[in-house]
């Protein structure tokens, strides 16, 4: 019971902060609300006994990716009031229409799913050891591909950051 109450509190925080990300006019506030959202998601992962994923969620998303976002916002000074951009007014109704369509479809799907709905007892699956073993045996080739992708990302960002020689 307590777990359910906790889940619904976290879910409400997650939805409200996600709404804040979209509807806040200040990019810095958006980024901070997104950090809050990622943090609540990490807590939900802990509740789902996925500790490893939860910790990585905080390290990767909150600790690295969002700091980069804030860094770029502040570097380019996009957070100051005069640089805050207006939303496109024409596309708004369309966006809500699309959004409502997606929401209806997904929620509908969520309720017609015919999967085993009984929660399994907490297992070893969320621990670092089990995930690591699966990662480097069964999923070894995808991991290698991921390494290639990240290397490409690093090289690409270095190329982008290089100043053009005039």
């Amino acid at each position, binding site marked *: 019971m307590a777990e359910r109450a906790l889940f619904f509190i976290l879910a409400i925080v997650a939805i409200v902060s996600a709404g804040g990300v*979209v509807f806040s006019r200040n990019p810095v506030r958006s980024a901070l609300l997104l950090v809050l959202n990622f943090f609540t998601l990490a807590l939900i992962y802990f509740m789902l006994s*996925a500790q490893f994923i939860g910790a990585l969620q905080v390290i990767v998303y909150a600790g690295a990716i969002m700091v*980069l976002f804030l860094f770029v916002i502040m570097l380019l000074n996009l957070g100051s009031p005069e640089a805050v951009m207006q939303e496109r007014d024409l596309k708004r109704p369309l966006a809500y229409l699309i959004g409502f369509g*997606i929401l209806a479809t997904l929620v509908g799907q969520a309720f017609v799913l015919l999967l085993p709905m009984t929660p*399994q007892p907490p297992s070893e699956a969320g621990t670092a050891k089990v995930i690591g073993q699966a990662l480097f045996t069964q999923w070894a080739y995808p991991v290698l591909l991921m390494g290639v992708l990240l290397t490409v990302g690093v090289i690409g960002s270095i190329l*982008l950051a290089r100043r053009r020689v005039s």
Partner: protein
Amino acid sequence: MEAAPLNAYLVLSAFLFTMGAIGVVVKRNPIVMFMCIELMLNAANLAFVAFARYQTDLLAQVSGHIFVLFVFGIAAAEVAIGLGIIVVIFRLRESIDVDEVSLLRG
């Protein structure tokens, strides 16, 4: 631990995904659009982890978690490149309004 029903997680995931989708369409600031894409990726991650919790097979549970790891990796690479592109665009034209950047040249 008595978990919430799977539906609850999926509905939460759906809400987050929708917010992200609306944000991508509504916003004109590419950085906020990026953040909304991250929101959508996280909604998918939540669904992955929730499904993993409701599998009986250990291998299937772990697979759900590993997919989330791959999404983390892809998101990191995407952000590194994407923010690099945004900085370059800003350097070239001192504005990063996506409507003004419609040409594929600097």
